[in-house]
């Protein structure tokens, strides 16, 4: 039986740390746009998770699209996993808060599911392409492959 007390301060400490890092990034970034997210790969991972969830919902709701939607869900799910792994590698999450961002509510299937998938993939490819040009070398190949994977999925949908 462990006697370690719960650590309610850990969350706020983490938030504080992240906000400090974000401020540091703003100061170093040549283009003073809106404050960038702490890790650009975290945004790509979140987008991949959302795409995968939408594609899964479409696969169950639209039998005619099941095959391609499942392919999108599988590939985007793998994108989410590799991106999140790299995010966590560089900035390990606290063991207590390791639960990935939980957006468990199943997404609503849009009226034109195929167009919605395509639009999502186009946006994801563009976003990953921008990130791939700017990240350090050890991330560039992975992010470039994510962009290429999205472009390939557009061909799967076509």
């Amino acid at each position, binding site marked *: 039986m462990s006697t370690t007390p719960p650590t309610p301060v850990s969350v706020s400490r983490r938030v504080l740390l992240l906000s400090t890092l974000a401020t540091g990034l703003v100061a170093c970034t040549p283009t003073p746009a809106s404050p960038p997210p702490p890790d650009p790969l975290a945004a790509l991972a979140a987008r991949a998770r959302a795409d995968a969830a939408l594609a899964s919902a479409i696969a169950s709701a639209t039998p005619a699209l099941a095959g391609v939607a499942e*392919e999108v869900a*599988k*590939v985007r799910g*793998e*994108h989410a996993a*590799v991106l999140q792994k790299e995010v966590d590698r560089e900035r390990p999450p606290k063991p207590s808060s390791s639960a990935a961002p939980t957006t468990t509510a199943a997404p609503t299937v849009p009226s034109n599911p195929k167009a919605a998938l395509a639009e999502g993939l186009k946006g994801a*490819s563009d976003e990953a*392409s921008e990130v*791939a*040009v*700017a990240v*350090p*070398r*050890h991330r*560039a*190949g*992975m992010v*470039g*492959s*994510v*962009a*290429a*994977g999205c*472009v*390939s*999925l*557009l*061909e*799967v949908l076509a």
Partner: protein
Amino acid sequence: MTQPSSAVPPSRAPLPEDTLAAVQAALGAEHAAVWVYGLVSAFLPATFDKAIAEGATAHRACRDTTGRLLGAAGATPEPAEPAYLPPKPVTDQASALELVVNAETDTTTAWRAAMERTDAPDVRRIALDALKSSAARSTRWRKTAGLTPLTPPLPGQP
């Protein structure tokens, strides 16, 4: 993806040795792809003419862009080999399709490697454009050839 998005200036700073080697290797893959498209045209019926022309044109354009990049950086682009040895003999439509898919896969691998060996945004962009367009063509050919999966999750990942 078909627009010549990579205008290369007449001269640029020399490329570091590792970048140079990776870009020359990618150029080698482009030379091989141009050769492959020439070879397979003899084994594929006329219905493939358009796809073959598109692929051959894209690889020639990429080869030329890469040659200009190397020239601008003061390097000599490696020339094409007189011929290439396919991993398997090409004897019919199926083996021809397999070889085209192979060639496209090889170029995605070479360009992803180049992305990881440069910090220069112009080289990254050229590599990323080539990686994405090869990945898209690879998926189109896989569809045509009935190969599954239609795309790897991370095209270019060795």
